């Protein structure tokens, strides 16, 4: 018999409790000399004769048994099926074998990870003794390399734990594309993580042991954020997703440093947003906390940690050379009440303090002189954000000091946006049709260095680029009549708003596991406090700034870098347990049969415990 929760056996000493109580009770009893027990013993129905003593012992046994059964129930015992379909697919000869166990948190569902471990053990046990085994976890941890199966200890497998890191299954498989052996992938075959397998070609034989369930139930927190403050009140928005087909009632709790809100939500199938109000002022301080739903299927997507910092005033400067270039912006910004927006000709740039603005729109500058260049680089160093909109005025020579520009594209015909980063904040919630709509007549042909393309045209010229420090966005087209018809299209307002929102939320405090956290600290070493321990981290220089990069986020929770607090959450997409519909190929075998490796028998013990309880009640009554 094996146990899913062997830690429950820490309660095992409790079985002595009835014995201790029994003896305590006995010692507490007064001892009385009596002339003779002759007549007491002679009574037939007495409670103190042999039967009574027997009953006492029976009670003791029953109570001990009751506690033992409860502990056994808590430990969730299961029986392992001895013969499994896996044995049929194992090679008879010695071979090089790679075993990959999916340790993403979706494997928590129905104990898939524990089942996976058992399968892994079984495979190792039944491989040819001269085989060579390499074992990976999909969180890219290589735990055994080129080892004989007989040398792999069971405890190594037994001690494996779920990882909240992103899945590297694709990278691992691609790394071994030319491997001449067999690879066994033990996974729930989630569509989210394994869709690459549809077009995957390799030299090795991939055998997938599929633990996924066609019909599953799960719900989780997809997203959580604070809404803009209104009237000094704070509103929260939570996006929940119910993957099952029935309505669920979910208790949800917000824990903050000094508040605790609990609600019961009726969650229909699909995605649902809920808004909540914190009934008190939080002041200026940074608040950390978490949102939690009570749901048992999968733990990884049930909690969302947050760090909340009161919004700072977000002021925008729109700098221009020609006033007609900003007419559209003026028209657009006139309806944006939440921001402080100033307009300034570039020639007056030396009159203002640039650092007092959170965001700078630099619209169609013709050249950037040395003074402006210093100002801009200083502004970027101080965490300033720039949105640069290039246009026909661009004088290449001057501009090349910052990045290499080619001439303005003035093609015959028009360009349309063709590719874009769908997952990027700017393009989230924007529909493809809307993005593809505007026509572009001219764009600046920019040769990019240290720039990432977020969107590009149908001739592969870039449309929107972002620098690696995430502080600079570049539009390669001025949004004017002779460049594009964009200002007349539905894409223009949301695109501009989203870029502003992007930078507004760019000083973000919330990250995901696997994300590299880059922070600017003006010291050589900082202390990092994480949910699993503390580190000292050296800073390094990047563009004249002391930065730290932190990618060792393993557990969700609140991380602290000196005074800066951030929240790190699991990737909530992992909660979507939808299975990949995959066809078998020559080099791809799927063991589709549901492998019931173990039968949980905890309910049996609960039943016995209840039965024992009934016997005791019966004995007490007679």
């Amino acid at each position: 018999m094996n146990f899913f929760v062997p830690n429950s056996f820490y309660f095992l000493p409790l079985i002595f409790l009835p014995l201790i109580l029994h003896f305590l009770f006995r010692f507490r009893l007064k001892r009385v000399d009596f002339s003779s027990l002759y007549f007491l013993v002679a009574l037939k129905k007495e409670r103190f004769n042999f039967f009574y003593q027997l009953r006492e012992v029976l009670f003791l046994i029953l109570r001990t048994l009751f506690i033992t059964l409860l502990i056994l129930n808590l430990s969730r015992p299961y029986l392992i099926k001895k013969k499994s379909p896996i044995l049929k697919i194992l090679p008879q000869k010695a071979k090089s074998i790679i075993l990959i166990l999916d340790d993403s948190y979706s494997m928590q569902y129905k104990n898939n990870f524990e089942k996976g471990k058992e399968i892994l053990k079984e495979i190792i046990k039944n491989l040819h003794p001269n085989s060579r085994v390499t074992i990976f976890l999909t969180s890219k941890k290589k735990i055994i390399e080129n080892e004989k199966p007989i040398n792999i200890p069971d405890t190594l497998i037994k001690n494996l734990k779920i990882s909240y890191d992103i899945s590297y299954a694709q990278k691992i498989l691609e790394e071994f594309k030319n491997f001449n052996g067999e690879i066994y992938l033990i996974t729930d075959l989630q569509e989210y993580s394994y869709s690459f397998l549809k077009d995957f070609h390799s030299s090795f034989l991939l055998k997938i042991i599929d633990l996924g369930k066609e019909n599953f139930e799960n719900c989780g927190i997809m997203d959580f954020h604070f809404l803009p403050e209104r009237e000094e009140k704070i509103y929260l928005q939570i996006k929940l997703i119910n993957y099952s087909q029935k309505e669920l009632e979910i208790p949800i709790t917000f824990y903050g440093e000094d508040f605790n809100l609990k609600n019961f939500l009726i969650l229909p199938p699909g995605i649902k947003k809920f808004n909540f109000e914190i009934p008190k002022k939080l002041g200026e301080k940074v608040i950390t906390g978490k949102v939690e739903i009570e749901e048992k299927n999968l733990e990884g997507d049930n909690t969302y940690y947050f760090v909340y910092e009161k919004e700072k005033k977000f002021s925008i400067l729109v700098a221009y050379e020609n006033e007609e270039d900003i007419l559209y912006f003026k028209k657009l910004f006139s309806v944006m009440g939440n921001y402080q927006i100033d307009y300034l000709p570039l020639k007056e740039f030396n009159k203002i303090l640039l650092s007092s603005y959170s965001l700078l729109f630099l619209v169609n500058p013709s050249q950037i002189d040395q003074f402006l260049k210093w100002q801009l680089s200083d502004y970027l160093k101080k965490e300033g954000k720039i949105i640069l909109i290039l246009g026909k005025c661009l004088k290449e020579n001057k501009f090349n000091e910052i990045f290499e520009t080619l001439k303005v594209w003035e093609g015959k015909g028009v360009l349309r946006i063709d590719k874009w980063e769908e997952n990027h904040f700017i393009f989230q919630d924007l529909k493809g049709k809307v993005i593809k709509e505007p026509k572009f007549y001219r764009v600046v042909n920019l040769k990019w260095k240290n720039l990432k393309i977020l969107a590009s045209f149908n001739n592969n010229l870039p449309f929107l680029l972002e620098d690696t420090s995430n502080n600079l966005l570049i539009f390669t087209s001025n949004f004017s009549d002779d460049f594009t018809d964009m200002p007349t299209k539905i894409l223009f307002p949301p695109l501009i708003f989203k870029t502003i929102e992007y930078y507004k939320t760019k000083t973000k405090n919330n990250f995901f596991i696997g994300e590299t956290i880059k922070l600017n600290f003006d010291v050589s070493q900082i202390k990092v406090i994480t949910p699993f321990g503390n580190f000292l981290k050296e800073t390094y220089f990047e563009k004249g700034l002391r930065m730290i990069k932190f990618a060792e986020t393993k557990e969700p929770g609140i991380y602290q870098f000196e005074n800066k607090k951030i929240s790190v959450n699991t990737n909530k997409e992992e909660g979507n347990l939808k299975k990949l519909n995959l066809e078998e190929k020559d080099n791809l075998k799927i063991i589709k049969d549901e492998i019931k490796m173990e039968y949980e028998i905890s309910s049996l013990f609960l039943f016995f415990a209840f039965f024992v309880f009934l016997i005791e009640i019966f004995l007490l009554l007679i």
Partner: protein
Amino acid sequence: MKYLLPEIIHKIKRLDLKAKLVVEGFLSGFHKSSYKGQAIEFADYRPYLPGDELKRIDWKIFAKTDKFWIREYEEETNLRAYLLLDNSCSMAYKSKEISKFEYSSFLAACFAYLLFKQHDSVGIAIFNKNNYQYLPPQFSKFHLSKILETIEKTKPEGETDILRSLTEIGKKIKKRGLIIIFSDLFDNKDNVLKALKNLRHKKNEVLVFHILDPNEVNLDYNEPIIVRDLETKREMMLDPRKIKKEYQESLRNLFLYYKRECIAHYIDYNFIFTNWPFEYAFFNYLEKRARIK
């Protein structure tokens, strides 16, 4: 009569004094002349025959009738009395200051003294399952002292086996007499009765004092207890409140059984609690004594 209360008598240390006090106290309070009358009883007159002692002629009759009439007295019956005292450990039980054995010892001592005063010869047997001490009946002051000394030195010990003990003692009793038994009779009721019947079959008069402590019947405990058998040292956990009624019922049936069976076999059965005055036992004895005569 207040001196006959067990709690008062208990305070006196010397057993002979206790017995004397109890018996004299009882007799003086009861009927002083009956003691004298019982020693030499007038029986009848008969004509004088040559050889008769002159002192036995009733001169008052002669004065009235001018005939010599001799007064005849019945000789003292010279009763043999056997005091059978149970000294098994169960007799050591006491809920207050006086144990059953102490109570029985006082009674036995008192009876010895009383019988001596009545010119009866008294013997004693103190018994438990494993052994017994036996002093055959004699009439002498020295013997009385010996009996009292034996009683005084005896402590409760051993277990109870009434049948075995009384059968053994019965073999020692050669001449029939009055057998007075002091015991709690904590034994198999059939065996007890068999033993009593055996004694009775030998034409003995049997007087049984079934001595019990009131708490043995009342079971006055307000919580579960562990009771320890004084004889076997065996322990048992019980809640007296739960079994009291049933236990008392069984004891009641037992007493009634003894009473019924004893009456049927002309045995005097007397049930006595250790907080009862001694006179109760004496009345029963005197009643019995009168019958024997």
